[in-house]
């Protein structure tokens, strides 16, 4: 754990790398998320991490470095479930708070929450079923 004085006070490519690396280290140890990710990324994690550096760079620094279709990527993940997004967000928020000061951390958390919600809607929303789908847990 780093002290509050050492926390990053702005968004940078270096900060994004630290966040992504620390976050996915937690994911890979998490009882709920680890098995899902292990199936989706059975081999070398570096290509995924590199893609996530680019994604967050695009989102936080508007660099346009990431180009992809995350909805389609998530559609084919076996075992993906709405409640896993909550777990993902909790770990992401925790990691972001550990590395960045409150203002920057909140910027990351706000983006992550909106993107998670829109991915959830894209993957699971059906007009004929209740939303949010908590009852299906």
């Amino acid at each position, binding site marked *: 754990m780093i002290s509050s004085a050492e926390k990053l006070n702005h968004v940078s490519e270096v900060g994004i790398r630290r966040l992504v690396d620390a976050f996915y280290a937690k994911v890979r140890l998490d009882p709920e998320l680890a098995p899902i990710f292990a199936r989706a990324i059975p081999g070398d994690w570096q290509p995924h991490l590199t893609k996530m550096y680019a994604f967050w760079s695009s989102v936080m620094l*508007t660099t346009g470095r990431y180009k*992809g279709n*995350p*909805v389609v990527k998530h559609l084919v993940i076996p075992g993906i479930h709405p409640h896993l997004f909550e777990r993902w967000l909790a770990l992401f928020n925790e990691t972001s708070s550990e590395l960045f000061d409150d203002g920057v951390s909140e910027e990351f958390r706000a*983006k992550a929450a909106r*993107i998670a919600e829109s991915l959830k809607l894209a993957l699971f929303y059906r007009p004929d079923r209740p939303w949010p789908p908590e009852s299906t847990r």
Partner: protein
Amino acid sequence: MTYVVTDNCIKCKYMDCVEVCPVDCFYEGENMLVIHPEECIDCGVCEPECPAEAILPDTQPGLESWVKLNAEYAPVWPNITIKREPPADAKIFDGIANKFDQYFSANPGQGDQVMKTNLAD
């Protein structure tokens, strides 16, 4: 919940948004762009990039007709990911109110395809 392109894009079409969008969800009409609601991940990167301030969150009240229009045309207009020169008269039309009734065109724009063909020539 996604972002939508609204009235002030019409005949301005600056296209700054298409370069920053991480998921390439902009589609091009003859004189405006729209966002594909099923592809947008609500990251909000495009909103401040638009010089015409034409991109808004669909949660904002009063945008129902634009939500419908984006959803209707995104599947039929070509995808655009590469910015081109905006229309020469873009600045003249920037800020004019209610452009839809007078100027909206349902015709597709050229999208990226024409660019790629040109590059290959």
